[in-house]
């Protein structure tokens, strides 16, 4: 096989990158949005006030960053009070689950390998690193554990849905629908759709089969998950941006900056 020296010689005779389009735009946008999300999320979990729009504003909305609130440090009726010894923000306790899930997600891996690690920044644009072992060694070999993060995240969309339903209660047995409730519902569904399109989940639920005909139920589940999987990137971004937006909205309502309009 003629590889090696010939290659090295020839490479010297042409520029490493011949692309003339705006190949840098996509990684640049990804970089900015992901970094912005990380900074905002860090701030919000370390700022344990106004994450609950409670009876003082006539609502019952809990920020998704603090759901489920299992410590006794959440105000209002949302606390499940399972962990009383936790001295810090309740948000910190819940953070590891979405972090593990998103950080090991096949789509986000692509996004940050390209935009943060520049390996490669774009197709046919040189890798910024001299040597490369991909996901074959520690620490990146741990990406193989993504399916366990999938198992751990499964309760979350359901809990968020439950919190959204609880948000329909406007105090002392009265029910209603505010804009905040719609935002909470949309947020729960977006996380649900993102989760349903998980590549690891798609494999576990049916993709591992060689003969679909031997597992009709698993085949059906695989087909449904494939539909979400086709747009996994889209769900990844919308659910990411929307969870931050939900938190912002609830903080604005809780702190009295805006009033949550009641639809009925």
């Amino acid at each position, binding site marked *: *096989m*003629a*590889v*090696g020296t*010939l*290659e*090295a*010689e*020839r*490479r*010297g*005779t*042409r520029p490493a*990158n*011949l*692309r*003339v*389009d705006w190949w840098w735009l996509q990684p640049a946008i990804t970089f900015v949005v992901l970094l912005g999300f990380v900074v905002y999320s860090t701030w919000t979990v370390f700022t344990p006030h106004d994450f609950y729009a409670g009876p003082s504003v006539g609502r019952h909305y809990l920020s998704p960053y603090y759901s489920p609130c299992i410590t006794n440090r959440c105000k209002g009726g949302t606390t499940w009070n399972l962990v009383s010894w936790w001295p810090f923000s309740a948000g910190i306790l819940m953070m590891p689950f979405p972090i593990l899930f998103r950080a090991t997600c*096949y789509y986000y*891996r*692509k996004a940050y*390998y*390209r935009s943060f690690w520049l*390996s*490669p920044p774009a*197709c*046919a644009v*040189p*890798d910024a690193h001299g*040597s*490369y*072992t*991909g*996901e*074959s060694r520690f620490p*990146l*070999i741990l990406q*193989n*554990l993504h*399916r366990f993060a999938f198992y751990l995240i499964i309760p979350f969309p359901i809990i968020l849905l439950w919190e959204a339903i609880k948000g329909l209660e406007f105090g002392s047995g009265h029910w209603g629908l505010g804009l905040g409730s719609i935002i909470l519902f949309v947020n729960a569904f977006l996380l649900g759709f993102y989760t349903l399109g998980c*590549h*690891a989940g798609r*494999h*576990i639920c049916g*993709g*591992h089969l*060689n*003969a*679909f*005909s*031997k597992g009709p139920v698993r*085949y059906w589940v695989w087909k449904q998950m494939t539909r979400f*999987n086709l747009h996994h990137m889209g769900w990844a971004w919308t659910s990411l941006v929307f969870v931050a937006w939900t938190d912002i909205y609830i903080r604005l309502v809780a702190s009295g900056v805006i009033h949550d309009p009641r639809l009925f």
Partner: protein
Amino acid sequence: MSDQVTMKVWRGDTDGGGFHEFAVEAREGEVVLDVIHRIQATQANDLAVRWNCKAGKCGSCSAEINGLPRLMCMTRMSTFEPGQPITVAPMKTFPVMKDLVTDVSFNFEMAKRIPAFSPRPPDADGKRRMAQRDVERSQEFRKCIECFLCQNVCHVIRDHEENKQHFAGPRFLMRITELEMHPLDTGDRIPLAREELGIPYCNITKCCTEVCPEHIHITDNALIPLKERVVDHYFDPIVWLGRKIRRKG
């Protein structure tokens, strides 16, 4: 209608080379390969270019056009900014033989390292059966025209020559997935895929999928499922336990 275009075509051989500029006519409806042929016919008779079908089906005319790996016969001239020069270079990952023609033997060597289909014994009536839904799944991978654009764009070997020893590239890792998913196949190529042909080197950045002229979902439907099968085999204690119990029961 016809336009005058500037083509910057890489010319050279195993000793090196560089871009040569050609002012050439491009007629309405033409593709890059037409213009390359016009250069060959009128200005550079010895320009080497590999092609066969001019219909995007033989996979011979792979090159890098304005830096993007593409089939020359499927890239319309009308897609370029008028007045701007268009560069045409040989695939970067494989050694140049002459001008736009590269030596793609790396790919055939990799193909040889994958054990062939090994079907289980036929049914009692001497026939082998597969359900349509099982056929459909691997059908997508069989659309491959072996243009090797995915192999060319993959940074694992494009930018890291040393990985050519232990990374088969997306086209052949996809071949392993196809065989592994085959309901009649009895082979187990997962250890090979992990230990010798380099699936862990893929960082799922999807350039193979982006350039595939057959629009095969290489990463989503072949490489990620292969990675998940590696996880089943090596990293998942639950799957391991399940296998143990089933074997006993």
